[in-house]
């Protein structure tokens, strides 16, 4: 059965859609009340963020738009030293979308939310003209457990840890769009375990940043600019799977600029670097983590290449790949 414009009317059909799909999967004490707004209790300072998801195709190896919409907002909260607690989820659905498609996406959202230990406590649905597309906005609140985590907080000598392989989400999306068969899966995942373990083990995390659109190169430049410092990384240290490396060689892509949905950069004081690396590697989604470089004096981002050349790494220019998340 397909969605038509009447499901966005606010009447009986909208209520059917809410009950039969959204409440069926998301149900919890707060949402079940179906009030105009959720009433929440939080401890201390909160982080609050929002993100919209327009990825095409809706389904790809390793995830779908629903899973990304939860992981993306959860990870943004985590990067501020906050433990994600509550999410809202708003859907803009184009007419012609199959009910099963919506249900599969909603189910993925619930699975990701359960893993990340967040509740989806409010939502909205609109139906618009179109041809089977879905767009999702999620907003989230998290309780700060580590204050002062900021991209402006890095110091000369600090070590930079990357939590795992680069480029997998980007390559998975491109493979699907280009109808290329391979085993590359999107890395889309909530990074809760890595962040909790670092903070609970008293690592004095200076900065955390998830490596999404724009890739590692763009994140490192943001750190350099905000912290008014330089960054130096080693190409040899960058974790990239053989399959993604091959994919990049064929298509002329650079993993430094490719999008990820389950990777983060952590900057820690040099003396805690080895301990922090060990913690990340032992956490879920962190086993391929590496120390990739350090904060230096000066400005800009530099890389020692595999051949021991040295070059500057700039931010991404242009759109890269449109509608990747």
């Amino acid at each position, binding site marked *: 059965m397909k969605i038509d414009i009447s499901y966005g009317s606010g009447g009986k059909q909208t209520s059917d859609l809410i009950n039969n799909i959204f409440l069926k999967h998301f149900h919890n004490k707060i949402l079940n009340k179906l009030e105009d707004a959720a009433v929440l209790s939080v401890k201390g300072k909160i982080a609050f963020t929002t993100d919209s998801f327009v990825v095409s195709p809706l389904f790809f190896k390793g995830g779908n738009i629903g899973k990304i919409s939860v992981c993306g907002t959860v990870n943004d909260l985590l990067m501020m030293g906050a433990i994600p607690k509550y999410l809202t989820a708003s859907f803009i659905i184009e007419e012609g979308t199959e009910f099963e498609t919506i249900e599969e996406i909603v189910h993925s959202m619930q699975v990701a939310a359960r893993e990340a230990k967040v509740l989806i406590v409010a939502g909205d649905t609109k139906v618009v003209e179109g041809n089977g597309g879905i767009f999702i906005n999620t907003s989230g609140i998290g309780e700060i457990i580590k204050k002062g985590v900021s991209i402006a907080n890095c110091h000369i000598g600090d070590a930079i840890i990357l939590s795992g392989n680069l480029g997998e989400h980007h390559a998975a999306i*491109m493979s699907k*769009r*280009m109808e290329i068969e391979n085993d590359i899966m999107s890395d889309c995942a909530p990074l809760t375990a890595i962040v909790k373990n670092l903070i609970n083990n008293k690592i004095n995390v200076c900065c955390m940043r998830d490596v999404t659109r724009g890739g590692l190169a763009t994140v490192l430049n943001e750190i350099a600019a905000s912290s008014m410092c330089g960054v130096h990384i080693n190409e040899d240290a960058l974790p990239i799977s053989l399959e993604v490396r091959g994919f990049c*060689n064929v298509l*002329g892509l*650079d993993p430094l600029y490719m999008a990820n949905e389950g990777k983060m950069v952590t900057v820690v004081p040099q003396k805690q670097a080895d301990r922090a690396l060990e913690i990340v590697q032992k956490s879920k989604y962190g086993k391929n983590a590496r120390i990739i470089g350090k904060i230096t004096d000066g400005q800009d981002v*530099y*890389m*020692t*290449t*595999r*051949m*021991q*050349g*040295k*070059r*500057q790494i*700039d931010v991404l*220019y*242009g759109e890269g790949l449109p509608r990747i998340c």
Partner: protein
Amino acid sequence: MRTLQQVKNELKDYQGEKIAIMEVCGTHTSSIFKNGIRSFISPQIQLISGPGCPVCVTSATYIDKIIDYSLQENHCVLTFGDMLKVKGNNLSLTEAKAIGGSVRMLYSPLAALKIAKENKHIQFVFAAVGFETTAPIYALLLEEIIKSKIKNLKLLTAIKTIIPAITYICDNEKSIDAFLCPGHVSVITGSSVYNDLAKKYHKPFVIGGFEGEHILAAVYEIFQQVLSKQYSAKNMYVSVVSEDGNQKANAIIDKYFKHTDDYWRGIGVIKKSALRLKEEYLDFDAGSYFDEYLENSPINCRCKDVILGRINPTDCPLFKRTCTPLSAIGPCMVSTEGVCGIWYKNREVQQ
């Protein structure tokens, strides 16, 4: 036998006369930067980027025409991503799209077949831009168009061949001492095409692969030829480049295309440097033969001198000031394989 480190040391320590080596393949340019090769060889060995980016040398007249198609009722332009941002005399395809033009980006030319079949009421025009390397794929596309009797898909071609451009540079630009010959193009043409060039112009013509080590090996071969004054063509990419090239690819190119003169943006007309559809296939051509080429060169833009290896991008007065990847003025800044774009995004650090 020398180790990689010994080769690097020799290239770093060289203090003789300047050796100007031109590469004519955007993928080479990109790999030279990605590996930081300039940063660890002597500044006396200059790696100069030639006309190796097909988008950069596509005429503004061609781009104007493809934009016209995008704005016509019931027409849609199919193109690779690289062509979207390059400006013609007025607009780029991206700008045309913003004012209502119909443009779709493809990753593979063969995807055009499916789109044309599913939308019979729309006339599609494929922007078939590239070098020898992409010509066989366009030929295959045309073969499928004919076989499937598709009526609503035509090609607007701007396919260039690199050997005539190398010859042009040999005749006109005396400062280039040697050529790092393109790996991919040579897969199609074969290595033998460089033998005559080496004899005629007394310069090294060395085919190299795309890994850092491949490029370094080719540069080192050129370096040794220059030192010994023994110039020849040499294939250092034997794993994929044969003496005679890819016969199948050449056969299908010859079946559908003929060699004609062509206009290179910033350079002018180069003899026999285009592949255009033969007369018997002109029903599938969207008007790729132009009588004249109109080009309003942006003031102070020195893309021409960059493409011909006369100056580095950093010597252009617009580079990084008004011409950046986000607001490109010259065509060399637009494409991912454009020399200026690559220089902008990848600055090396002399060690």
